[in-house]
């Protein structure tokens, strides 16, 4: 199908696919089994300019938008969600600087990020603040020219591997959500350390760690936006990144679907390739239809965001919700149509199914996405009166 992509958008898709096929597919199983961080692939992505995709040209990027990032994430996800999570989390961590950074902050960080020289992570989640971002307990106390950070961030993607962290902490606990602020913390800052690497069900190539702040002093100018804007920074960041998670869903589903088609054409039972059986055909037809529906929603949302629209919360939540629930179904059914083979590690679909599960959980569980959508529906209905 023609998705009405521009020539440059086609190039981005092509390039990301080439990287996926040549550099990721051959190593994905090993990365998964060894739970190894994909540094080599990150270097390839850096060389290909893909880290600079959504960063303005004045800061060394290519000045593209959400759709371009979506296309890249989708293609990488078709090969390995662990790798694409690492890539997408880098974008997630970069958004606070891109959206709220001062010109000086942008000049300081964005060129290195665009060149893929320094990796970024976003630190929001805590033991008692996951879906409830208001429960943040990490504090940032102003002491002269410094903020002093104390607390622990949990399950931070790229934690320990990234060099730049955008972190949400409470600068004034008494104000509740309005007392949160966003900061840039660099890796080697004294008082900043990492917990052990988490052992996960899927996306094992990606690194997930605790960020531990113990009287960690950062310069006052490392605050992003003003004091008290932390919650807004977090919400706007998630608004920007959600569609990327949707793109991951489309990608992994497509990857699993392609494996399923290949397999069902060659596997013979009762004297026929199993793709000749209606039971299989109907499953494949449903899978393909759902993938296209999700892709349409994801692409359209990205285009809407790129048009400069402000009200992207609802539609980006929808894209994330629909595409990732779809991804879970499609990867599960890919295992199903491939039967015993699908369950074996010799084929990639069992990994895709394990990987896909995270999409329904991270960057706001799909239950939270439904809350977000519903809240917006209520608001819209109220406005319409």
């Amino acid at each position: 199908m023609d998705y009405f992509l521009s020539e440059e958008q086609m190039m981005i898709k092509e390039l990301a696919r080439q990287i996926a096929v040549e550099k990721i597919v051959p190593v994905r199983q090993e990365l998964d089994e060894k739970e190894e961080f994909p540094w080599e692939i990150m270097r390839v992505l850096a060389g290909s300019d893909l880290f600079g995709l959504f960063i303005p040209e004045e800061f060394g990027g290519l000045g593209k938008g959400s759709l371009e990032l979506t296309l890249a994430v989708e293609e990488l996800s078709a090969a390995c969600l662990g790798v694409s999570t690492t890539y997408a989390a880098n974008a997630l961590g970069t958004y606070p600087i891109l959206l709220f950074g001062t010109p000086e902050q942008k000049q300081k960080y964005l060129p290195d990020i665009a060149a893929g020289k320094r990796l970024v992570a976003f630190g929001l989640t805590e033991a008692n603040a996951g879906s409830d971002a208001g429960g943040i307990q990490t504090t940032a106390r102003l002491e002269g020219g410094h903020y002093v950070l104390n607390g622990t961030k949990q399950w931070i993607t790229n934690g320990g591997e990234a060099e730049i962290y955008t972190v949400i902490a409470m600068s004034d606990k008494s104000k509740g959500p309005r007392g949160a602020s966003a900061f840039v913390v660099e890796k080697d800052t004294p008082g900043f350390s990492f917990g052990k690497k988490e052992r996960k069900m899927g996306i094992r190539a990606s690194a997930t760690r605790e960020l531990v702040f113990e009287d960690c002093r950062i310069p006052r100018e490392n605050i992003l936006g003003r004091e008290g804007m932390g919650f807004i920074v977090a919400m706007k960041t998630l608004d920007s990144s959600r569609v990327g998670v949707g793109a991951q869903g489309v990608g992994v589903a497509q990857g699993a679907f392609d494996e399923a088609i290949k397999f069902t054409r060659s596997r013979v039972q009762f004297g026929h390739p199993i793709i000749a059986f209606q039971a299989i055909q109907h499953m494949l037809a449903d899978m393909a239809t759902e993938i296209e529906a999700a892709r349409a929603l994801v692409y359209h949302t990205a285009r809407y965001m790129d048009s400069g629209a402000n009200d992207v919360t609802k539609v980006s939540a929808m894209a994330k919700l629909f595409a990732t629930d779809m991804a879970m179904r499609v990867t599960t059914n890919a295992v199903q149509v491939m039967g015993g083979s699908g369950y074996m590690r010799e084929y990639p679909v069992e990994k895709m199914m394990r990987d896909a599960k995270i999409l329904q959980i991270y960057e706001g569980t799909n239950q939270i996405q439904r809350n977000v959508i519903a809240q917006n529906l209520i608001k819209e209905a109220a406005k319409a009166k």
Partner: protein
Amino acid sequence: MRIAVCIKQVPDTAEVKINRETGTLVREGVPSIINPYDMHAIEAALGLRDALGGKVTAITMGPPQAEAALREAISMGVDDGLLVTGREFAGADTLATSRALSGAIRAIGADLIVCGKQAIDGDTAQVGPEVAEFLDIPHVSYVRKIIEAEIDHEARGSIKVERLMDEGVDVVQAELPALITVVRELNTPRLPSLRGKINAKKTEIKKLSAAEIGLTPEVVGFNGSPTQVKKIFTPAPRCGRRVLEGGLEEQVEALVKELMEKKCL
């Protein structure tokens, strides 16, 4: 350093299948690619340019569609492309090809010429050394490692490399200008970059005909080729195939016996 990379567009033999009945190659739908060895040549040239500065020009001889190979090279970071093209070049053997390529190289000037060891369609490995001879410059074949390269302001310089021989490795130092042919071991070719791809779309590919490189039609293409293909045929299928029978142990026993009889052991 001015570096010229000679590349060739070839059918992707990894995609070529043989029709078992007719014994002919099934060429339908087989994509054209840059000869895989030449990808290593491009990487070597880019690596040297990145380290020493200068410019890399990719050169190919072929029909107009060979331009795609040059654009692919540019997407990897090559600075510009030069297409030696025209009907007069058709049917060239290695001598005529080398004559044309060396003429083009002379036209642009180069301190170092990098070629892949051989092309996967012809497998002759002759064009590199022949180009060097036409240009009257030294060459080193089968380079598996570039140890160092240096060049001064008057284009005097040298390149020190490891050359892969049948029974080991030679360390060879060549005066510049020189030509090297490279093997797969040398490096891992980089993937294109997005900026490179955008650049490749925009860059104008320079085209040269025989006349423009000072060659007459008699010395290029078919007319300038001393070798001629008399006939093409498919290799005879192997015969004497024997299926071994019995359990594994019996099969192995039978194999050892057969090999003894054939005096292989």
